[in-house]
């Protein structure tokens, strides 16, 4: 590689987790394998392991989120880290503090990891570029760009049901244009080597030249698009898209792109249905599908904790390696 990946340290260990794009299949597989180990922690009477004892994790959420923030918080707590939840939109920035001032103040409190969600694409990269070298940054969603832990928890959920990525056909349905989740999923599915990725969306919700840019097949008809697929991933439709006239109405969207049992019948009989949540019932899918036997939507939430524990402990572990490396260098 010509330019070093800013997410990796000099030895290639994960230091930050900003985007799936550019990470190797081996590293993605390592994250998935490690997450398997962390699933068992939920079976313990004391749902905690002491890996990150004494570390401080700050959740910096510049944008609202319930599920992502709580699962990151729970993941950090299950690793025995101390967690700070900062709802930045209502605190420091409202008083005129800049993003970097906020960051440096938290660094002065000896925070070891920042979990960042921001409405601007590239915010997590920006913070990683300006943070102290001993701090790790996890991207919890930046603008339309990336939501890498969501992408990996989706891969983890798929692998638990269908271990052989090479044989899979996966369809992603919905607002591809605005979706950081879809971008992360497409990068991960491509790197893990699935047989085929399809995107199914109205023309107004697709980036231009999406076939060349992402190597996917495009469908504008849901029934046709899900034919013979192993995995159907539904994306959330945001209400503000209706206001900007990209979609006529919720009713109209459901009529054309809502997933129903009938439309799903063309998929493989053992196909699974996923959704990053929260679901708009009656817009992206009807309740029969959301609560049906093929839905793995709640499993995704459970798996999200294990995957986030894996990513956080890998980054903190890399900090440990590097701090030891530094000490050794000084000792000569």
């Amino acid at each position, binding site marked *: 590689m010509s330019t070093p990946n800013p997410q990796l340290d000099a030895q290639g260990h994960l230091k930050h987790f900003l985007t799936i794009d550019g990470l190797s299949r081996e590293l993605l597989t390592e994250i998935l394998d*490690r997450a398997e180990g962390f699933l*068992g922690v939920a079976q*313990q*009477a004391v749902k905690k392991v002491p890996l990150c004892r004494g570390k401080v994790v700050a959740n910096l959420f510049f944008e609202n989120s319930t599920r992502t923030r709580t699962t990151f918080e729970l993941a950090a707590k299950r690793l025995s880290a101390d967690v700070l939840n900062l709802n930045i939109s209502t605190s420091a920035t409202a008083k005129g503090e800049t993003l970097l001032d906020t960051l440096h103040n938290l660094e002065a409190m000896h925070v070891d990891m920042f979990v960042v969600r921001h409405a601007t694409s590239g915010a997590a990269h920006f913070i990683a570029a300006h943070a102290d070298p001993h701090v790790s940054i996890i991207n919890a969603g930046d603008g339309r760009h990336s939501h890498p832990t969501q992408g990996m928890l989706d891969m983890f959920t798929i692998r638990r049901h269908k271990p052989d990525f090479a044989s899979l056909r996966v369809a992603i349905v919905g607002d591809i244009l605005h979706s950081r989740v879809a971008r992360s999923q497409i990068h991960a599915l491509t790197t893990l080597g699935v047989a085929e990725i399809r995107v199914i969306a109205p023309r107004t919700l697709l980036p231009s030249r999406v076939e060349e840019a992402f190597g996917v097949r495009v469908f504008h008809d849901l029934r046709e698009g899900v034919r013979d697929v192993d995995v159907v991933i539904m994306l959330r439709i945001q209400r503000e898209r209706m206001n900007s006239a990209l979609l006529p109405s919720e009713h109209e969207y459901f009529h054309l792109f809502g997933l129903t049992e009938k439309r799903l019948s063309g998929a493989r009989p053992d196909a699974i249905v996923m959704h990053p949540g929260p679901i708009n019932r009656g817009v992206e899918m009807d309740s029969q599908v959301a609560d049906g036997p093929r839905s793995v939507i709640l499993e995704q939430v459970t798996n999200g904790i294990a995957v986030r524990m894996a990513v956080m*402990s*890998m980054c903190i572990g890399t900090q*440990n390696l590097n701090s*030891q490396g530094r000490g050794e260098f000084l000792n000569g």
Partner: protein
Amino acid sequence: MSNLDIRTPALGRTELWKNAAEIDAAIARMVDELTGLLARQGIADPLMIGIHTGGVWVAERLHGALGLHEPLGHLDISFYRDDFTRIGLHPQVRPSCLPVGIDDRHLILVDDVLQSGRTIRAALNVLFDYGRPASVILATLAERAGRELPIAPDVVGLRARLDRDEQIKLSGPAPLILLRGQAPRKPAGKSDLKDARSNPEEDPRVSPGPDPETNRP
């Protein structure tokens, strides 16, 4: 293995220390000792738990020979190691699996080689995050000098007299043999870590094969 603080991915040069028949005999002695111990302590229905990976191989044999009817538990102690702050996460972590609740039960904890005692310290911490056992008996296939913590086994198959820089490693799952070799000499610290990190990854979902590390947690 118990000597957590020496991370050698493989013994440099190895020689056979105990062959399969000698291991069989040692396990048979452990079965006799365990039977006697359980009888003396009035324990009728113990649960057996093996520590990944070598401890599980030994536990499988003991479990069968003792005719325990409840399933064997597996413990991975990677998340409880005392050196995470120095070396990061161990490359191979398999999920722990305790199929039967351990609250108020008498446990037999099984490992392959006891040296520093740090693995057993970690294993006890894992167990107590699953519940409060009535008692824990420690059975190890082999024991050697080098204890760093106040931990003593209740049942031991073999006692090894080794030089300080010698190591033993269980190879398995079938046949079980013990190898002996010199711990490769190298400066402690970073190079050590690199080796520990560059171990071939093993898919945790496939059945455990021989562990490439001498001192698997």
